[in-house]
């Protein structure tokens, strides 16, 4: 497929594209791609390099922690599947999560500006229940719980919401945030796509530098001096989440920070651990860590007990006895250290 075809497309474009190009995941956008006549192979072969470049830019932006900026409408729509192919071929969970995060952030910013009708349409496509009541948007509580669970903000706790007969009343801005979160989850659930190895090698050639950059990020400082081998299961679980770039809940951040602080990990190293979070913000993280370890507030928080960890769903052992019936993760760490270095069983 050559350049002429793109120009041809450009002229036959229906006006609708100007409303949908920011949302290339919509049914209408998919239809547009289908109608464009560009095949999966065209994309793979990279014969239309502007599209591939734009798809690649989408991924790069996420990697660099930037919200993707638009090029032109058709490219935006057509490059969306390309980005999905690239991500699937690189097949790095951390990168996919990061991409999902920034994509959803971009969509959130755009949706805030949209008209009600458009929002209603997107909500319907995502299966988010919605009742419109004057200026308010009402959604069903299970949809709310499902899509708000990764937002670390007290304001989003159910307990601070107005809920009646199962319906939660929200401002427009918050309702579209739910849509964005749903979108994020959809990306995470659908990627990586199952793409033939051979096909992948073609695309990988064109995105080699993304992979190099990703590796560099991966080789970030590991925790020194401390024997992370001996961490209790709960803490290991949280750390492996940070390594995969999975967002942590407030309680997870809190538990990890208090634990590491207690066993003597330096503040900067703790902050380093959070670097891989999709929504990492240096200042914010430093502020939160400062707060927890007591540098700003003067109160040093202690590592939560095992039973608290249990209620927050962080404790990963089925039975206490796997963890020697300890009452606090710190104790489990000490037991593990003893076992390893002193041979005490």
């Amino acid at each position, binding site marked *: 497929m050559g350049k002429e075809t793109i120009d041809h497309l450009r002229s036959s474009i229906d006006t609708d594209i100007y409303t949908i190009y920011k949302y290339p995941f919509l049914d209408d956008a998919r239809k547009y791609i289908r109608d464009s006549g560009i095949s999966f192979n065209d994309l793979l072969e990279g014969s239309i390099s502007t599209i591939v470049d734009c798809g690649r830019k989408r991924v790069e932006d996420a990697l660099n922690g930037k919200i993707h900026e638009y090029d032109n409408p058709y490219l935006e729509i057509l490059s969306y599947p390309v980005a999905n192919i690239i991500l699937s071929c690189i097949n790095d969970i951390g990168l996919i999560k990061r991409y999902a995060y920034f994509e959803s952030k971009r969509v959130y910013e755009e949706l805030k500006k949209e008209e009600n009708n458009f929002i209603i349409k997107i909500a319907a496509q995502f299966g988010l229940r919605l009742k419109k009541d004057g200026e308010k948007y009402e959604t069903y509580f*299970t949809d709310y*719980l499902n899509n708000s*669970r990764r937002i670390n903000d007290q304001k989003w*706790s*159910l*307990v*601070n919401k107005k809920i*009646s007969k199962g*319906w939660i009343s929200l401002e427009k801005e918050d309702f579209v945030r739910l849509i964005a979160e749903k979108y994020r989850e959809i990306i995470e659930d659908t990627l990586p796509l199952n793409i033939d190895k051979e096909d992948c090698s073609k695309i990988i050639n064109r995105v080699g530098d993304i992979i190099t950059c990703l590796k560099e990020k991966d080789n970030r400082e590991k925790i020194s001096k401390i024997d992370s081998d001996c961490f209790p299961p709960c803490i290991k679980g949280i750390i492996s989440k940070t390594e995969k770039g999975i967002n942590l809940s407030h309680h997870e951040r809190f538990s990890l920070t208090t634990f590491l602080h207690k066993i003597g990990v330096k503040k900067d190293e703790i902050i380093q651990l959070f670097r891989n979070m999709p929504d990492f913000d240096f200042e914010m993280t430093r502020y939160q860590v400062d707060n927890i370890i007591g540098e700003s507030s003067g109160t040093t928080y202690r590592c939560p007990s095992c039973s608290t960890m249990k*209620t927050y769903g962080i404790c990963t052992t089925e039975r206490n006895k796997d963890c020697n019936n300890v009452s606090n993760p710190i104790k489990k760490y000490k037991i593990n250290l003893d076992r390893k270095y002193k041979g005490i069983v």
Partner: protein
Amino acid sequence: MDMNEVSTIYLIRKFNEYYTNLFKNKNFLSCIPPSFNEREWGFIPIRYKRMWRHLSFQNLGEMKKFFLKNTPLHLYYSSAYYEHPDIKKMSEKGWKGADLIFDIDMNIKNDLKYEKMLLLAKDEVIKLYDILKSDFGLNDIQIVFSGGRGYHIHVRDRSVLKLKSEERREMIDYLSANSLNIDNVLKKREVVGDYGIERGYYYGMVDSSWGERVWSSVITFLDEIRNMNENDAIKKIKELKIGKRDKFVKDLSKKDALEMYQMLKKSNIVELMKKDRKITTDKFFKNLVERIVENELNMLPIKNTDNPVTTDIKRLIRLPGSLHGGTGFQAKLVDNIDNFDPLNDAIVFSDENKKIISIVDTDISMKDNKYKIRKDENKLPEFVCLFLICRGLAYLED
């Protein structure tokens, strides 16, 4: 104490008799959870006290036959629905959904008398039921007396079956309102030179369900005081231990309490609060409002829920209608919670007198009677004997 052989045989016989009758009874069907064939079943046999689980039954006949042959001390089924309920590995069972379960268990207040404990549990159940209805709009809710120290609430409304563990936790947080404090439920700030008061205090309702709930209970409380006679009102106001200036005083003077009462009666302050959902007041009234809010925040949320029961979406739960092996009471499906009295309604054994050896001195209230139990030999109704045997406090003579 390990049960002696005579007591064990007796217990097996009585439990078996019970289940034989239960299975014949038509009402038993209302105890069987929907899709029972997609659930995992488990039980603890009377003689070998170890959990036997990962059972599944394709039809009721099969199930009844099994449990008549293996008399259960405790009988459970999974709140979850599975593709393969009988596979042992949890990860291979194929989770399809689960009822939403709440367990109101009063084990925390163990200094309380059993009857008192059960009454408190009942209050919590009523609060919980009401909020599940009004706030969450849920239907298909079963209340079951656990046979022990509390109640189980089974919610089978279709909308909740797929909720994941963390989403259930969020619901628990909502119901127990643990993270709420006065600042989340009341807007407040100091105002200078407003409404003719030199320094006033502004209060407003927070636009959340808990905000509304607290606001309206403050109003109810104030209304109550207004409608009391002078003496009762003064007593009530003094109980709050607030001062005119200080937030806490041991003993408010009668004169000041009277002043507050008259203000409530004569001014339209409560009407304004109802209408505007905000108010600006002086320090005395500020202290009053804040104290009421603090009290309500203690009273309104649901307490004593055993949270892991709700968040664990693969847990086994006692079958309604079955016997609790630790008490010999029936885990009773409750039709009308207001009239329900577990120490009458959940007792299933006869009142035929029987000789039993107790190892303790104790008092027990059951079926509106108080039984004084002396160490060594007693003659007691069968239901008391079975209770004591189940609790490990007594045995039958060899």
